[in-house]
Structure formats: C-alpha cells, structure tokens
C-alpha cells in the first residue's frame, strides 16, 4: 500500500516539548518506569524522542511508536511535573501524528474495524449489548428501554460485554429501580463512546460515534446521561463538546456523582455494612476528570463502614495498569502494574477495595487473585454501585 503522507514533524503541542527540564520527577510516579526501570519509556524519555523528531534528528519509526504507546495514559506525570508540561495532551497529540504517518500498533486497526462494524470494542455483535439484564431475576429488557426518559444510563462496552463486570450495570439498574428513577437504557442502540479510538490517536473515527450517540440521547429527550465507566464519562463530559456536531445540552454525571445526588435526595435508604474499605481512584475519573470527593462521600455515607485511604490517593493515586490500551499491547506489563497496585491495597489491610470503574475492578481483581497466597485475608473488589446495592439490600 502506498502511504499517502509520511509525517516527519510533530504537528501539535510542539512548543510544549521544550518546557520539559528533564528533571526526572516524573520517574517517581510513572507506573511504566516503576516496572521497567527503562528511560526509553519514561514520560521525559518519550518527550526527548518527540523533540528529536521535531528537530529533524530522526523520523517517526515503529520502535519510537512502540515506546509512545507504552503508556497507560494515567496522567500521573502531568500532576508531578514542576514545569507544568501537559504530558498526556502531548502524548495524545503524538498518537494522532503517529496514526497520520501510519506508525502505530497493528492491533489498533483491528480495534478500529471492530468498532466500525460492531459498534463496540469486542468481537461480539452489538445485539448482545444488554444481555446482562437477563441476569437480574424478574427483569425484562423491554421495561428498561423506553422511548423517552429523564435519565439515560450509558453502560459502556466493557460492562456490557465482559461477564466479569456485569455486576456493575446490574447493580445500577437495580438501584435506579429502587429509587424510582425514570430511566432508560439504549440497549443495542448504544455505540462505543469513542474513547479507545481517541486514546489511540484515531479522532476522525471517534467523531462519527459522538454524533451518533448524542443524537440517540436527544431522541430520548433525556435531561441527564449517567455512565459507570470513567472513560465514557470523561469522553462525554470533556471531549464530546469538541467532537460532536450537535450541542451536548444535557447533564452528564458519573454514577458516583449520581448516587450521591439521589442519596442526598433521600431516594435510597442504606443499611449498615460492618467492614473496613478503601477507595481506588480511577485515572479517568480522578486525575483526568477531577472527580475525587463524590465517591468518597458515597462510601462514607454507608453506616458501619470504616474508611481508610490508600497511601497514594486522589491526584497521586497509582494507576491499576488498565488504561491507554496498554493491556492489548503489552499484557505482561499491564499485569505487573496491577500487581503493584494490589500490593498497595493489601498494605491498607482492608476487607474490600471500592472502585468506580469496570476496568479497574477487573485488573485489580485479577491481580489480587494472583496474590491470594500472600494475603492475610481475602480482599473483595467492588464497584461503588455494588457497595451501595449491598447496603440498600442489607446484605
């Protein structure tokens, strides 16, 4: 195939490249560096490569591309950077350039194809998107898909197709029912939000999805959209305004924010749960969307709960390894980052770790299982919606 254009220069954010002083503060927080101890994949190392391209020292190469994509996009580096370099934005821009110059991991083409054909990130067709509803005793899908409703629950691809995380959407619709909320699902009419494409550098493809999804919400005449996936939330809340042709004129809340709202309105009554729990801040909810306090308030509103913080929390929270498509590019590296996270959780000596992300729940759950023999006691991994449902049901 003839490559139509080969980029040799950084087109975006190039002015920011020079602001990095190479101080190395980012090394202390980068989950990739902590595992690999290799400068070629550190935040400042990546910037040095992009600067070399910008100066014309070298062109984009596959090896350079691999290094840029070896990143969970957790954004810890930006928080730590004394010079205020917006590293994640630079890496997103670099990925756009790499896609433009046809230097990107082949596996992403498959992702693009799957989303274009099946409208979701899995190999399944979109018809099965709401199959998880069948797991709720007595629930009927047709009751949950209305022509119009106040609230649309956008379940997201992973929770909709990965059986291990079905418990999240299941808990959420049960809670919404319990609170008597006028809500609807989109069922097989829900398409991927576009986040995996955006973080891969494939913005054009993501725009189509934004237009489609925004139109679907408008059809339902909804005042509010809620998501349980932090990446969907981040995309809807912070990227769709730029991507979508139509205005996004409805409210967008993450489930942790929505649960706090309906708890404050007295729409759910909570029973005591006697256990010690901690909270893991998902990168796309915390650092990347600035939602830190609502999940904590929800957890601490459950009577009987002893709440402790992880050593690194809020903006300093350690990534679980599940982001940036790293899992599909380097599964071993992603798994070792998850193990480090699991060790931090084990040190907190808790009965359960609560997260607010299906991806974090999956990676942390797997890592804790691997560490089972070293653990003093079993640590449960629950989504915030699962915790609240257990409290509501009193079990």
């Amino acid at each position, binding site marked *: 195939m003839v490559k139509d254009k080969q980029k040799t220069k950084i087109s975006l954010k190039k002015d920011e490249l*020079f*602001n990095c*002083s*190479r*101080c*190395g*503060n980012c*090394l*202390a927080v980068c989950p990739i560096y902590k595992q690999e*101890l*290799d*400068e*070629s994949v*550190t935040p400042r*190392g990546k910037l*040095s*490569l992009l600067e*070399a391209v910008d100066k014309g*020292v*070298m062109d984009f*190469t596959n*090896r*350079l591309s691999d*290094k840029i994509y070896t990143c969970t996009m957790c954004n810890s580096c930006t928080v730590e950077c*004394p*010079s*205020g370099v917006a590293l994640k934005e630079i890496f997103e821009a670099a990925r756009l350039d790499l896609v433009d110059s046809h230097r990107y991991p082949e596996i992403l083409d498959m992702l693009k194809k799957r989303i274009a054909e099946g409208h979701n990130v899995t190999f399944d067709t979109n018809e099965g998107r709401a199959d998880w509803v069948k797991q709720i005793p007595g629930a009927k899908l047709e009751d949950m898909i209305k022509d119009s409703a106040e609230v649309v629950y956008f379940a997201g691809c992973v929770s909709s197709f990965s059986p291990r995380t079905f418990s999240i959407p299941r808990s959420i619709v049960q809670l919404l029912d319990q609170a008597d909320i006028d809500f609807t699902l989109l069922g097989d009419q829900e398409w991927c939000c576009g986040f995996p494409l955006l973080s891969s550098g494939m913005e054009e493809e993501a725009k189509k999805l934004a237009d489609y999804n925004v139109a679907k919400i408008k059809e339902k005449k909804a005042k509010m959209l809620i998501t349980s996936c932090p990446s969907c939330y981040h995309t809807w809340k912070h990227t769709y305004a730029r991507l979508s042709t139509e205005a996004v004129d409805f409210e967008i809340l993450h489930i942790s924010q929505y649960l706090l709202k309906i708890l404050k309105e007295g729409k759910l009554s909570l029973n005591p749960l006697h256990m010690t729990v901690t909270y893991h801040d998902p990168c796309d909810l915390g650092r990347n969307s600035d939602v830190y306090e609502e999940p904590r308030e929800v957890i601490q509103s459950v009577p009987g709960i002893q709440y402790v913080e992880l050593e690194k929390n809020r903006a300093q929270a350690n990534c679980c390894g599940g982001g940036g498509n790293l899992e599909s590019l380097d599964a071993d590296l992603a798994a070792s980052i998850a193990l480090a996270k699991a060790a931090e959780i084990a040190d907190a000596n808790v009965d359960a770790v609560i997260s607010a992300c299906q991806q974090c729940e999956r990676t942390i759950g797997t890592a804790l299982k691997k560490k089972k023999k070293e653990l003093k006691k079993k640590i449960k991994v629950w989504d915030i919606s699962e915790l609240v449902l257990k409290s509501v049901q009193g079990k």
Partner: protein
Amino acid sequence: MKEKHIEKLKEIVGQKAVTTEVEDRITYSFDSTRLEYLPDAVVQAKNTQQISEILTFANEENIPVTPRGAATGLSGGCLAVKGGILLNTVHMNKILDINPIDLLIDVEAGVITEEVDKSVSSYGLFYPPDPGSLKSSTIGGNIAENAGGLRGLKYGVTEDYVNGMEVVLPTGEIIELGTRTVKGVTGYNLNSLMVGSEGTLGIVTKATLSLLPKPAARASLLALFDQLTHAAQTVADIVSEGVITSTLEIVDNVTINAIEDYLKIGLDRNIGAMLLIEVDGHQGAVDVEAEIVKKVAAKNKAISCKMATSAKERDALWAARRAALSSLARVKPSTILEDATVPRSKIVQLVEAVNDIAQKYDMPIGTFGHAGDGNLHPTLLTDLRIPEEEEKVEKVIQEIFEVTVKLGGTLSGEHGIGISKAKYLSLEISPEVFDLMKKVKRTFDPNNILNPGKMYFDD
C-alpha cells in the same frame, strides 16, 4: 564501537540488556542539565559481577563507560560525553540489611533515596540527606555527586552518611572501602575520596549508610521581611544565638513573585525575602529554640514570624518553598539552576551581586535556597531556543561564579562539576591542586575509560 564489542557486552549481560538502537540511545543521552550526548550502546547491569566484567573488557578495549543512576543530576555527571557505553545501574535496587543497633543500612546502588528513608522509618530512624530529587534519584548517584539537600546545616550531606561501599574500579577489580564502625582510621580514607568523585574513579555498587534516630518533635516557622538584608541578618543571628536549625531556607523577591503568579496564595509581592525555618529535637529543646528564632526575627524587623501549630499549617507554610522551583520553571521555557555557595556571612553580598548581574544582562534570576549553609540556587530564566541566549547565560554564570569565589565561596555546593561547570574550575582550584586531582584520576583509571570528559581531567 565495533560489532564485536556489542557482542561481548551481550555475552556479559544478555541480549536484552544491550541496545544500540537510536530510539533508546536518545533517551539515555540527557540529564537534568538538558545537555545531550549520545552513547553508542546502552547496557542495563544487573549485578556487581557484570559491571566488573564490563569494566575489565572496556579497559582492555579502550571504550568509554559512563555510569548512570536516575539521571536527575544538574552538572552532566552521567552524560556519555565521549560516547561508548552508557551503564545503567538502577536495576540493582535491593535493600540488603537494616541494623537498628549499629544504625546502618546496606543497599545496592540503584535504591531510590526516598526508599532508604522509608524503609527505616518503622525502626524510629531516618536517613537525613534529602536532595530535591529524592523521589527519583538513586543512592549511587547521590554518592557520586555527594548530594546535599535542605537539612545540610544541621545534618550535613551524603558524605556524612556513607560508612562504606563496594566499588568496581575502572580496571575491573571489585573492592570494599570504609568500615561498619563509627570510628576508623585504617589507611587513607578512600571511602571519602570516592564520595563526590562523580563516577570518575569507580562505580559504586553497594553502600553502607549510617542512620539517625528520628527527632521526637519539630517546629516550622515562616518569617517575612521587607528587606533581604534583614532576612540574611536573621540567618546569621540565629546561628550566633547557638541554634542550629534543621532547615533555614531563604526565598527572594523575584521567586516570591513567581510563586504568587503560579499559586495565587496571597503573598505580598513587595516582600524582600522570606525565611522558612525548622527546628527539631526533643520537645523542650524545640520550644526553646523556636522562641529564640522568633526573638531574633523580631529584632531584625520581621514583618511577621508565624509558627505552624498543626501538620496542616506546616504543610501550608512549606507550600510556598516547595513551589519555588516549579514557579520559576513556569516563567520561561528554560530554567538553569545553579548552586553557588558562600560562607553564611556573605549571603547578602551574593544575592545582591546576583541581582546586579540579572539587571546588567536583562535576564530574570530568582534566588532561593539553603541560607543556613550558604548554599543558594540562583535560577536563570530564559529560552535557550533563542540563539543569543546561550551566550548570555554563559556570561551570567561566569560572573556569578567570579563573585562567589571572591566572597570565599565555592562553585558548587551540591550539584557537582561534571561538564557544566568544568570550564570554571580554575576560578577556584589552583593549577597544583588540579594537577594532583588529575594524578589521582590516572592512578585509578590509567586508560581514562571511566566517565571521561568530566572536570576536564583528560583535555
């Protein structure tokens, strides 16, 4: 380097631990000076034996070897100025032993500075050296550069805590230096010679570090002054009153304005200087010393002198000082951090001279740093992409160093000479001393293969 050299390296450390790809070499070409020198090969060493074999081989074949830790250095110490092998030591990162009776910890060279302190905390102990990069930097790098930190006045610097070490000589021999005792006068003190030798005499692979009991209490105070001279006089008076504070930090007006621009915490932009002071020890002593500090500040016309009454307040007091470098770094794209150091009594003269130089060359310079030990950080703010700026920076630095030496000071308090300050060495060191240093270097490294190009010993 030839193909056979690369093959030999792969034989020693394994295929995956050697790379000659440009994408890797670029990322090992820099440190915090932002200078760049491409090595020919990057090698990830896993143990002392491998380093010994590499040095033996490199010495035979005359290949330059540059050791590297986390590359947070500010003088170019880990840059492969003459190409050759860049030897990464960060994989050797085990804590080997903690002995709370002897107050010693044994670590491999790649252990991160902060990890040393964290690992002994549960024993009620601490490791005092606290360089600004302690969350990333390695003990090996700290020893090579004799890293300092904020607590120098009371607790000294890295060299005061290195009891002993395992070193690989440039000719490949593995030797042990120092003792596990408090005292020790057997032969020349080569252990101390190695500290601060900037990786030119040997590669430190293990270290025995001494520890101290954690102070039971501490108090933090923030004093504001109209005039810099009043702040500096306070520094001098605190010490003459017999109080050795654990930290005594000064922040000048340029830096205060940069901090206010960045954090917007309501600092008065007209303040001449502020001092951040911490005393530690047993509660009784801390109370007495904090009182003395307050009195001295008042005597020297401090606008205010506040003491933190909670951990939260202490963090708030420290927020401004912690943000000093970040704030300055945001003013201009390039930040050049110097560490000119003068006797405590000459701080005012140095800061005033730096301000004059800044005006003369129309280059903003913020100054902050460890006033208690005379170690200041004049920070040049510029944009090195503009061609003329580089020349201007050189002139500014030359003048700062000239005045520093004239005041009885030293070119570098804690960053080292490396390559960034090598050409100024003759301002401070006589030809006789320089020659002696060169002889020491040749004795250790007859073929000049280890970290060549540093301190201009080989030119």
